[in-house]
């Protein structure tokens, strides 16, 4: 697991459900065939209503047209991120789009598990609401050693919650690696 992640932030609201992360019509694509799998990156976060895409201003596309990868490797959101369906295609789509970490106030259980057990992205919980303090486009540094998030543009920084009991699974890179490492399979 890397110690620091630095990138531009893409800021979203509360209750971003899996239909907004990857609309159901795209779930037909293969996650392993390269040409199809990259479409998950292209369509990541396309279910977000445009006025709420990239807060506080909105109307900011997460991925530029004709691109498959985003310029924003960090997503900052409010509470209950990833609620809704069990589709693992959601954290997969964010990963394919190039997202490395999400910082949200809280997560829905299945999305949280999928992100970790599938080794896709690191779901980090913030100690306080941050989607009203960080703006889309702000340059952000996540310090995974000291569990801090630094807003380089605004020279502000905030605490993040410890990864807790799931940290060994994140460090191993997913549940299969974790189980192999611990000789469970």
């Amino acid at each position, binding site marked *: 697991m890397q110690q620091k992640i630095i990138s531009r932030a893409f800021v979203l609201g509360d209750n971003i459900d899996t*239909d907004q992360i990857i609309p159901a019509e795209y779930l037909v694509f293969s996650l392993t065939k390269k040409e199809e799998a990259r479409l998950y990156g292209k369509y990541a976060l396309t279910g977000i209503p445009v006025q709420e895409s990239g807060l506080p201003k909105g109307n900011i596309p997460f991925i530029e047209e004709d691109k498959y990868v985003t310029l924003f490797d960090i997503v900052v959101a409010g509470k209950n991120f990833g609620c809704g369906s069990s589709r693992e295609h959601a954290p997969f789509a964010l990963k394919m789009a190039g997202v490395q970490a999400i910082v949200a106030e809280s997560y829905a259980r299945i999305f949280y598990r999928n992100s970790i057990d599938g080794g896709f992205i690191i779901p980090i919980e913030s100690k306080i609401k941050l989607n009203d303090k960080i703006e889309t486009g702000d340059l952000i540094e996540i310090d995974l050693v000291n569990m801090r998030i630094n807003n380089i543009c605004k020279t502000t920084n905030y605490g993040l919650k410890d990864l807790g009991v799931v940290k060994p699974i994140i460090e191993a890179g997913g549940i*299969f690696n974790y189980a192999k490492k611990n000789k469970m399979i």
Partner: protein
Amino acid sequence: MGYTITEKILAKASGKKEISSGDNIWLNVDVLLTHDVCGPPTIEIWKKEFGESAKIWDINKVVIIPDHYIYTKNVQAKRNLELLNKFANEYNLTNFYPPFTEKYKGVCHITLAEEGLNIPGKVLFGTDSHTCTSGAFGMFSTGVGNTDAAFIMGTGKIWERVPESIKFIFENVLPEYLTAKDLILQVLNDITTDGATYKAMEFCGDTISVMNMEERMTLTNMAIEAGAINGIIEADEITLQYLKGKTNKNFEIFKSDSDAKYLKEYKYNSQIIEPRVAKPHSPDNGDTARNLTNQKITKSYIGSCTGGKITDFINAAKILIGKKVCVDTFIIPATKQVENGLQEKRIGGKTLKEIFIESGCFLAPPSCAACLGGPEDTTGRSIDGDIVISTTNRNFPGRMGSKKAEVYLASPLTVAASAINGRITDPRDFL
């Protein structure tokens, strides 16, 4: 110190004598469910991780029920169905219900119940968030992703956090204008979409004691809409009656101890709840049907694991008999059995099917259909500008198709009444 039903089932499945909420434990899984959207990627991960000679931990415990994208021309959706056929044949899976054959059933959560695969005291994991539906049978059931499912498929085990429980007590007889859907929408309004995140929602009280299994399933089905890990109702005489002739498996019925610890308790008088509606774009954005009576609609939809069971259609038919709908109204039974039931159940001498056809509804074959939007050619899919009233479970932006559509969630009674008037209508106006 006593234990809740959820704690007791998890303790047994983990082989531990004592567990407490917050513990991360490894469970032995009794049933793994998957479908056409998550089955193929689950199989791919399982093959990749366990190698080409991968073994399923127990072929009798893997259940594959294709239901999401069935009646579509979409080539990738067709390919997914083919992949499942190939897999099921290769491994001789008996619990496989392929579309376009005699064995096809329809929506997985209702199929599990009909096929006797929901068994009290057992542990079910499924690659669908509404797997919590099966908790109506006094079992632990919850949704997971493809990776977790692949892990279970190879090992029969998975880790889980033991949840704290929240108790929801409903008292008194449910009036004829209310259904389980109104109760769960009331709960969601009160606790919000993250009000039970990582918690167990336990439903009880004398309203529930007389409820049929389908209505109980509507309650546990929407536990996920509050973020819950599982919804659960203790098995009783009604459960045993339902299971009769469906299973010959041995099972143990667990009940919560009287001194079990709950995080919180909510008590409702079922007599004073009003017909409920969840407004766009969240299941917790609640109001009464009465308050929304001026809200126009363009489409109505009765179907899904939440609102496509025979009880739901009987309720809708009670309202629609002898009336005409004035907006496009879709009738999509959850399963073949429900579809057959539309031709068997009668109200006032007419079959439900006759009632729906005479009132001007569109009938479509069983599947998840437009509950989750789906491919462009999905029956009932919402289009830009649609205002839909639906018996389904979610109304987040874009859920039923267009993200420029609005979805109102309600009971089959309220949806049927609204379809007649073309605006949201309290079903008491027709009862």
